[in-house]
């Protein structure tokens, strides 16, 4: 039995089909978004769809190579790759030009690359390697220190040195992996509560936040009263911490944040209703999507996205084009396809038989999920304007290759999961 034959047979073709479907549809929409009523071919390398085509082919080629490489390689070289990645991330800001306030792009000849896009994949490998060790068992907080550091280091570099807050934020996806591995659910729910409190404080005032906290913790105290006596002290402590957090948000928002940062948050929360001002992007995005109605305006017929009303229309706001040209049917369809894709990745992660593969696969699922949630949430005006790409849809070589890398390593690990036990 040839190895290649077994690889092809064991590949998860469902995932590959969805991947190909999303990529192809994304490519069509990039052509749509950059289509400027002057007919040029979708393969014209001077327009973005043509360039994206090159990236897609490259990504598929790379994917093929990944499938040929021994699955153990990733485990083996994870730390070395991680070290190289950290170095690259560190030197990137020194070489990079300022692109809209971020220093994350390296230009080599005609190609611009964003190393941060590959950092997600390598960090996932390193994390999987560390947490997948035979000796590693999650028992408590101290077992998360090193995994936290593994994701915290690239995150810090990207955020602080490269000023790519959006990409850095994606590393929060690993919290889902930690959760799956046993991290207390309190962290997850506590984080969600903190986010809600933040919104309430900024949007309204501190008082509704305090009322909400009182109700939440009141219920918690009542539920846990009889379990252990010291619990109520813990609950009280948490309550005080959250009240402090609310107050801090209040102060930070009004005193500490830079005006442009505050404006971004205000726009998101619907506090500034000025379509040509700071809320312009989101307002235009909503108009574009809304104008698609049920069936959309038809492919290449969108006027909003095409006439450059929506900024970043073929990168971060590509979902607008989908909404405008393909309507509710198309955009909801894409979301459902993504959901199936993510659920499929979770299922794949769950069927892995070794810790390394499972943690890696969960990382991949979480990263895709985070990208989808943040990107679409932003386009729909539900989340702040955070510039991260929609996987396989947004124009960009780095992200296309980065996401393919993530996916194909997962496919390789999955295809060889049986082999590995032998």
């Amino acid at each position, binding site marked *: 039995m040839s190895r290649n034959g077994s690889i092809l047979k064991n590949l998860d073709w469902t995932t590959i089909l969805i991947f190909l479907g999303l990529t192809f549809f994304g490519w069509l929409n990039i052509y749509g978004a950059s289509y*400027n*009523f002057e007919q040029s071919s979708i393969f014209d390398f001077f327009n973005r769809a043509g360039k994206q085509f090159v990236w897609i082919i490259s990504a598929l080629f790379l994917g093929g190579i990944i499938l040929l490489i021994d699955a153990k390689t990733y485990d083996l070289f994870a730390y070395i790759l991680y070290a190289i990645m950290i170095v690259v991330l560190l030197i990137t800001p020194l070489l990079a030009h300022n692109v809209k306030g971020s220093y994350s792009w390296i230009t080599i000849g005609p190609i611009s690359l964003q190393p941060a896009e590959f950092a997600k994949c390598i960090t996932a490998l390193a994390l999987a390697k560390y947490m997948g060790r035979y000796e590693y068992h999650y028992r408590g907080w101290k077992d998360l220190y090193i995994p936290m550091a593994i994701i915290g280091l690239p995150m810090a570099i990207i955020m602080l040195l490269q000023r790519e807050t959006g990409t850095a934020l994606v590393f929060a996806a690993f919290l*889902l992996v930690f*959760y*799956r*591995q*046993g991290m207390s*659910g309190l962290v997850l729910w506590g984080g969600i509560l903190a986010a809600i409190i933040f919104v309430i404080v900024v949007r309204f005032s501190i008082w509704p936040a305090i009322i909400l906290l009182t109700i939440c913790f009141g219920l918690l105290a009542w539920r846990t009263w009889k379990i252990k006596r010291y619990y109520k002290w813990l609950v009280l402590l948490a309550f005080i911490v959250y009240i402090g957090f609310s107050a801090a948000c209040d102060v930070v928002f009004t005193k500490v944040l830079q005006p442009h940062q505050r404006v971004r948050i205000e726009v998101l929360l619907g506090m500034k209703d000025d379509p*040509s001002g700071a809320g312009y992007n989101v307002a*235009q995005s*909503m*108009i*574009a*999507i*809304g*104008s*698609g*109605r*049920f069936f959309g305006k038809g492919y290449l017929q969108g*006027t*909003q996205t*095409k*006439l*450059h*009303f*929506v*900024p970043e229309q073929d990168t971060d706001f590509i979902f607008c084009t989908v*909404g405008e040209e393909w*309507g*509710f049917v198309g*955009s*909801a369809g894409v*979301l*459902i396809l*993504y*959901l199936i894709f*993510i*659920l499929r990745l*979770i299922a794949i*992660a*769950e069927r*892995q*038989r070794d*810790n390394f593969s*499972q943690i890696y696969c969960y990382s991949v*699922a*979480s990263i895709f*999920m985070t990208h*989808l*949630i943040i990107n*679409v*949430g932003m386009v*729909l005006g*539900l989340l702040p304007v955070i510039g991260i790409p929609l996987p396989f849809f947004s124009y960009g070589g780095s992200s296309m290759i980065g996401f393919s890398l993530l996916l194909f390593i997962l496919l390789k690990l999955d295809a060889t999961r049986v082999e590995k036990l032998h």
Partner: protein
Amino acid sequence: MINDKYYNRRYVISGIAVVIVLVYIIKLFIVQIIDQSTKEQADNNALVRQTIYPSRGLIYDRNGELLVFNQPIYDITLVLREMGKDFDTLAFCDILDINQEDFNNRIKEISNKRKNRGFSRYTPQVFMSQLTKADVAPLQESLYRFPGVALRKRTLRDYTYKAAAQALGSVGEVNQKDLDRDKYYVLGDYSGRDGIEKTYESILRGIKGEEILMRDSRGRLQGHYKDGKFDTPAQAGTDLTLTIDIQLQLLAEQLLTGKIGSVVAIEPSTGEILAMASSPTWNPQLLVGKVRSANYNMLLQDNTKPLLNRATQATYSPGSTFKVLQSLVCLQEGGITPNTKYSCNGPRSTPIKCTHNHGSPVSLEEAIEQSCNPYFWCAFRDMLQKDGYGDKNEIFRKRYQLWRDDILQFGLGQRFNESDIAEQSSGSIPTIAYYDRYYGKTGWKAITIRSLSIGQGEVLVTPLQLANEAAIIANSGYYITPHLNKDFPVESNKNTTSINPKYFPIVQDGMNRVMTHGTGRWYQIDSIQSCGKTGTVQNPHGKDHAIFIGFAPKENPQIAIAVVVENAGFGATWAAPVASLIMEQYLTDTIKRTWLRDRIANSILNEDVKEW
């Protein structure tokens, strides 16, 4: 993996994904299907609807001579946002021959939201307006050098003759009322403000077209939406042919030079207004374009009130010209017969003295010829008192009502509502209620209202009504609503009086005698039998108003006319010659009595009358 105690967490993580995607789909559903506002916003956003202004309908006189046409003008507009930092202000100012300071001031002015409420950095703002083609030609050539700058072509009115300013009216910017009333207009549009321009605004203006251009978020135009499939061309306004004879109009205005007064000439058989002049008047060019508001204010402040269309808006007591109506009404309602004669004691007559010198007793025809006041007082009295006064003057009051109703049939005391003349006064024929208020229900008798018998007192008419009155007599009993548009429906606007047609020849003969033997005898037209009646109207503003009504020829009348010259003295001296010359011009196409024309035209009766 076996014995995984956190196995259920896969469902929590999947659940989060499912819930969030579901929330997003709901949001999509709201935005794309429930919320209807985005579609409209989207249309406004990407598509620029640009109005194409139609050219306004042209106006011709009855002989096809062009009176009113259009001249193109240009506005320079700026989109501030598109101009950018590199805008070459120096070159721009140079080309327009303005200095930098003007430029900066104007920009400041445009950007001031309090002065310019429609200001936006994203939309075209008018930088300079109403420039001629020559003014903008240099800019047009180098427009490409100035991003955000555009030329907008519009049209203004232009006139072949300096005539008929009041009748034609003018075009000006729409006001708030127009905007509220008619959705067709947007701020800055022009519409007919008065005269014919106002009456026929809806057909003269045409239909605005629209081109739908696509624009990106920086406001740059990207060409026609769907290759112009949804563009609508502008439809030019309908041309209008007037009933006015411009040569007659020019003559009328020439004859009124230096006088305050008016002329209305009507073709009796059709009600077509051949000339409608009001003096003082102005050059219609004055109310066009940039200079309009300044000139309008100047005209407004002129105490001779040139803006008043005296032909249709000024009201006068008709004086002796009213006697022809009195004759007809009294014949119709009884009180006199064609054979009735009254004696006249000349200046010693009571209660009204006669101002003319003639024999006694006089017949109706002679009375008209000699404008005998006592005759018409007697006739009026006998008509009103024919059946006595009755209980509480009931019978008398009924007779008065009868008289008034008959007078109203001649188009007096009311506006011609069907007419296309925008500005009209109704004039007034006093009602019973009016006299009741003054004298009490039983406090007034024929003697109380005796001045009505000779057209003085409370009766007020406009020159238009007087001309129409002449037309009715010319037509022996009917009139077509006087109008200015050649396409005005004639048949449906025929109004017939209840006066028996058999009475008209008597009055016509009387009026003919005026021209042959009476007050108008100096102004007979060679070989044409004309009919007329002069009037000299006492008024509180100085010298008497000179009035004349008449028509010619006597058989098959072609023109009926009314002339009023304010504070000129005898009707026979000033109004009759004006009418006579106009009738001559119309009937013979020439004026033989050039000396008379020149004498009248060169006579300055009112020093205040300015030539605008």
